[in-house]
């Protein structure tokens, strides 16, 4: 489960140091100049290789040129938060021994159709450059990238020791690409396809795994919308003794899950249950599903339930007591079905569900799950005018029952300031607070006032808050609070909010840690954009769509900040003088504007 998991540490700081460093390290203390440089380098290498954290490594690399160089030699895990912030060549020039790459492409609003499909974020240049530079590459973790089958084939062929492939919210490839990876990567431990759009090329990729015992530890394909060869999967599970995580797609029926569990249940720690419905209705006696789940002594993470048949849900009761993570977000479960299950889940820390469990279900969660850290409630019916089954009552209950809550994503139709204020007091550990009141511009439905005070209380009282998404009727006051109190905020999402430019100014001037800013349909214009120019080099990106920006201002910003790539997406191509900017997406870049921009993108 990684829907918008956020990295807590800042992005790689690649900017300050030039790519080449001379052998003489003039900045080091005088006594070290008596040592031959290569000895010092070796010592440093041996020391720096113990540094794991990105922040520590970034800090170490800023000490002096020698440290910069040696750190570059010893960094094995590279994180790139924006694939267009630098070119692949720069990566391979600076870091010589990379084994693992985490690369992120499109901004998050691309998931909601706010960006055309062919915008970019292609994995191709990265894989082709790395194929030559890092033959020992072991792990690739991509988020929102466009990956083709050819890219996957190149990856499978170029890296003999390849171990982990994780594709989150990616697209552009199909089951044929997966088949190549399965077949050629003999040391594959992890193949995780999470929330990606995988085309059904009608290839039996499960059969493509090698015939002998595999090293597979994690196989997740719940997002693959294509039937699979179950016999082959059974064989695969049978010859994968190290398999701990298995997440099946909705084409795997309950009977089939039952058979798989009989094969490998005791080792599994994470199970995605597939459709959780019976494939073959003609059989009179269903097998004892509960017995199969009883055998799952190590399962702590349960998901799936894609086409749930509620009468079989009690089968999971044996594992509930051990669960730390439960994902019901594809299951339309009523409160009555839900309560008996959740009453057993005392250890639950991560819980995702649909709002069909209603406020009643949330109250049950609050009563039982005292260890809850992360809660996500998705809308069963994601439209604006429906009667929402969850409301401030559920939120209030959660805030009172789950005091250790750190991360919240909540979709609802109505909310009150009082509930938010209560939550801000009850849950001081909150780092992620994302509330989506689906009706746009809805005020507090009890008092009729704007939601300013509620969100204000959240930013004021939750001192650890790093990520915030706001909704409902909000005036400039809410943003004033954000600027005043939101000192640790790194990610901010705004939609249909604010009255004037001052709102955005408050945020840009008041939030020093702001990295990712995404705004849509809000009345912020040129004055606001200009007020943040001191910040943009320190941010990963700024997204503003359907605001009040003019082309002239964007051009000014682009001119004033040469290392900032200012993309205007969707404005009239025929008429460059057309003033209205539909979508602005800008980000810092070390290597200038990208060469693969499609026609509807204008880089200023």
């Amino acid at each position, binding site marked *: 489960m990684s829907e918008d998991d956020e990295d807590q540490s800042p992005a790689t700081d690649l900017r300050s140091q030039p790519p080449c460093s001379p052998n003489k390290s003039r900045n080091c203390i005088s006594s070290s100049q008596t040592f031959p440089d290569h000895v010092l380098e070796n010592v440093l290498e041996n020391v720096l290789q113990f540094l794991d954290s990105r922040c520590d490594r970034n800090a170490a690399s800023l000490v002096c040129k020698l440290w910069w160089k040696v750190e570059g030699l010893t960094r094995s895990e590279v994180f790139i938060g924006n694939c267009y912030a630098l070119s692949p060549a720069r990566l391979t020039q600076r870091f010589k021994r990379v084994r693992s790459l985490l690369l992120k492409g499109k901004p998050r609003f691309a998931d*909601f159709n706010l960006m055309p499909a062919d915008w970019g974020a292609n994995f191709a240049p990265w894989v082709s450059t790395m194929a030559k530079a890092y033959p020992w590459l072991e792990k690739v973790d991509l988020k929102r990238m466009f990956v083709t089958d050819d890219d996957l084939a190149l990856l499978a062929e170029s890296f003999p020791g390849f171990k982990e492939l994780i594709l989150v919210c990616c697209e552009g490839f199909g089951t044929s690409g997966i088949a190549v990876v399965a077949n050629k990567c003999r040391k594959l431990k992890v193949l995780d396809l999470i929330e990606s759009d995988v085309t059904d090329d009608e290839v039996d990729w499960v059969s493509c795994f090698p015939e002998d015992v595999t090293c597979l530890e994690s196989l997740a394909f719940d997002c693959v919308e294509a039937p699979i060869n179950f016999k082959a999967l059974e064989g695969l599970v049978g010859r994968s003794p190290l398999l701990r995580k298995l997440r099946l797609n909705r084409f795997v029926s309950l009977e089939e899950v039952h058979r798989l569990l009989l094969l490998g249940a005791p080792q599994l720690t994470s199970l995605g249950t597939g459709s959780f419905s019976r494939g073959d209705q003609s059989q009179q006696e269903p097998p004892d599903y509960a017995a199969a789940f009883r055998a799952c002594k190590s399962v702590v993470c349960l998901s799936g339930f894609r086409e749930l048949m509620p009468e079989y849900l009690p089968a999971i009761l044996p594992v509930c007591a051990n669960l730390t993570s439960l994902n019901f977000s594809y299951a339309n479960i009523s409160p009555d079905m839900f309560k008996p299950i959740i009453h057993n889940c005392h250890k639950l820390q991560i819980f995702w569900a649909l709002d069909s469990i209603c406020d009643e279900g949330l109250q049950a969660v609050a009563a039982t799950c005292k260890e809850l850290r992360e809660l996500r409630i998705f809308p069963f019916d994601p439209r604006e005018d429906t009667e929402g089954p969850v409301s401030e009552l559920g939120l209030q209950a959660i805030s009172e029952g789950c005091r250790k809550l750190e991360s919240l994503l909540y979709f609802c139709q109505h909310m009150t300031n009082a509930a938010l204020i209560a939550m801000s007091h009850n849950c001081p550990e909150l780092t992620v607070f994302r509330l989506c009141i689906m009706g746009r511009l809805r005020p507090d439905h009890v008092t009729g006032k704007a939601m300013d005070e509620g969100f204000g209380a959240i930013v004021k009282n939750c001192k650890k808050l790093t990520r915030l998404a706001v909704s409902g009727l909000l005036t400039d006051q809410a943003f004033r609070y954000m600027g005043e109190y939101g000192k640790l905020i790194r990610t901010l999402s705004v939609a249909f909010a604010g009255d004037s430019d001052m709102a955005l100014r408050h945020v840009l001037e008041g939030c020093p840690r702001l990295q990712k800013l995404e705004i849509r349909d809000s009345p912020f214009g040129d004055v606001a954009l200009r007020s943040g120019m001191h910040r943009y080099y320190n941010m990963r990106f700024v997204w503003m769509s359907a605001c009040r920006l003019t082309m002239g201002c964007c051009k000014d910003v682009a001119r004033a900040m040469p290392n900032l790539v200012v993309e205007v997406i*969707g404005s*009239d191509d025929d008429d460059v003088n057309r003033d209205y900017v539909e979508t602005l997406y800008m980000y810092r870049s070390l290597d200038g504007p990208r060469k693969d921009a499609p026609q509807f993108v204008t880089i200023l």
Partner: protein
Amino acid sequence: MDGQSVYVPPLFPCLILASHPPDNFYLSSFYPNFYASSPTFIYLSPLFSSSTKLTNEKNHNKNKRRILRWKPHKNILVKKKTTQEHRENDFLILKKTMTYEKVNELNLKDTELRLGLPGTEQAKEEQEVSCVRSNKRQLQSDNEEESTSPTKTQIVGWPPVRSYRKNNNSVSYVKVSMDGAPYLRKIDLKTYKNYPELLKALENMFKFTIGEYSEREGYKGSGVIPTYEDKDGDWMLVGDVPWDMFSSSCKRLRIMKGSDALALDSAL
């Protein structure tokens, strides 16, 4: 040139119109490779075309399935997109229409075939564009709740739920009406796994035979055309989209026959 039949020099990818379609058909010669060989075929293009469609074959495979949006009351036939294209379409709804690129030094906009007087299409598009845009601007300037109109403009990307999550509310029982039948029936879409099963069941239920389906021409031969109303309220031809997509978005079915169907038949 009144738009009824057009001759374009063979150098350019071309279409030749054989009959006169209804108003507001929007035509383009943008896909030479695929349709130039059939001179009488009228190709209905998407309203917007992305420049990469020519270059990206894979994308085109995904985009291959198109849906005809049939609005009986307006008598307009407009291409609606599948998920992949739908995203582009949603996004581009505020943009002016065609972005043509120069292909082999040809500016395809010059070879674009249109019906109707020059300038009329343009006006309509601009009106569409300005209408939607002003909708948004109004939202910002007034900053009050949008008045609920019967046909509320669907806001792109709101609420911010990823598309695969939206497939949860699949409808199972749908009403089926047949032109000329005295009462409606109801069927459970979940009991069928594909189109042939559904059509067979409908044939049995209403005692008719349906013609041969082809992607280009719909149902030919019998004067019976199965249509359905989707989640957005549009009437679509049964069979164009993958079964799963159809069964989750179909709200009701209507078997058209008689004069309506014949008109559609001849149009295609």
